[in-house]
């Protein structure tokens, strides 16, 4: 069997982490290729339903990252996001979801190296956890249902 290559989706804000990841590029720092970045104006815009959707669609890990507290381009979006994630993460724990597959982080526009480390560490940790079969098996029910309800 080939080595497991996790699928990782990153939800990042435009002003800090997206720019930080740009800096990783301009600094030519290398990191694992498993991550795909989706750009949001602000972490405040990230709906928890999108995280559910990502797992349902087969993501093995998720990165959510934005501006450090007090650095939000919109002043407070990241503070709202922080509360949302505090509650959502606890909710996932309560329902038995492997919440550590979602990595939350603050990466500023100046932290190109932190972004590279964050991706690498996330890929490593998800590799250790293996594919998220449990969630993906549950998600298969949708396909089956769609077949029977065509």
């Amino acid at each position, binding site marked *: 069997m080939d080595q497991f290559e996790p699928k990782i989706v990153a939800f990042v804000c435009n002003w800090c982490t997206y720019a930080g990841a740009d800096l990783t590029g301009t600094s030519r720092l290398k990191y694992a290729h498993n991550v795909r970045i989706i750009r949001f104006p602000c972490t405040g815009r990230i709906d928890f*339903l999108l995280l559910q959707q990502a797992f349902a669609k087969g993501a093995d890990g998720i990165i959510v990252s934005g501006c450090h507290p007090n650095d939000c381009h919109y002043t407070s979006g990241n503070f*709202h996001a922080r*509360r949302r994630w505090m509650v959502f993460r606890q909710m996932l724990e309560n329902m*038995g979801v492997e919440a550590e597959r979602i990595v*939350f*982080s*603050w990466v500023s526009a100046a932290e190109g190296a932190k972004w590279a480390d964050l991706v690498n560490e996330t890929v490593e940790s998800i590799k250790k956890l293996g594919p998220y079969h449990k969630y993906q098996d549950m998600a298969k029910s*949708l396909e089956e*249902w769609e077949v029977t309800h065509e």
Partner: protein
Amino acid sequence: MNKLKEKAKELLSSGAVQVVVGYEEGTGGKIRPAFVSRPEDADKLLYNADCHHNLALYLYKHETKRIGKMAVVAPPFVLRSILILTTEFQLEEDSLVVLGVTPEEELIEFANFKEIETWVNQHPIGMKEKDREMLNRLNAMSRDERWQFWQNEFSKCIKCFACRGTCPMCSCFRCTVDYNAPQWISVGSHQLGNFDWHLMRAMHLAGRCSVCGQCGEACPMDIPVHLLSFQINEDIFKMFGSRAGLTLKKESLLSTWKSNDVENFIR
């Protein structure tokens, strides 16, 4: 309880309200919500520990509002719901007479909502023994066991949405689950659709739930959905020191923040 009946009669006959929303005995001795609009019918009103319906549900619906000014029989969880709905602009103080009833089945009248706020802060709601036990059991489980537990429970879900229908906090008339562009939650009652639905519902109630437990009561498949809200309610209290339905301040948990919110997972 006679006091309650008398008060209801008085309110109706004086024309102070047009309808009293309360509880009555229904078929098979089961309690059901009652809508009393004639003074002579007030005698059928009752209140006891079996009254579990969260009557706050009816206070903002067109169907009841149309009748006129309302009075509501309000056990503690209804009082909390009233406060939450008020902070969310779904209720107006002057359109409602609140007939509070204590767990000791005594009538308390409130001159205004401020008094309700004071009262609910002095009278915490305890959890039922059965629910406390279940939560302890769930917390004692490993995470995988919890996953399995909920997977089993959700497998019973038939997406009848009784849990939503009976909850006063589900005040939206178009729920996200009914939204198809995009289709956030699959409509089918399969494992994923059910899981997504219950997770979303619990999230939308986080910081807004009056812990009445009515969603669990209403479930025809006996899924203890209310435990999701009960547990997060406890977690929220631990994290933020607040509970829903104790304030008239217009600030919901997730619509506010503090710069010193403390988490331990953001890198």
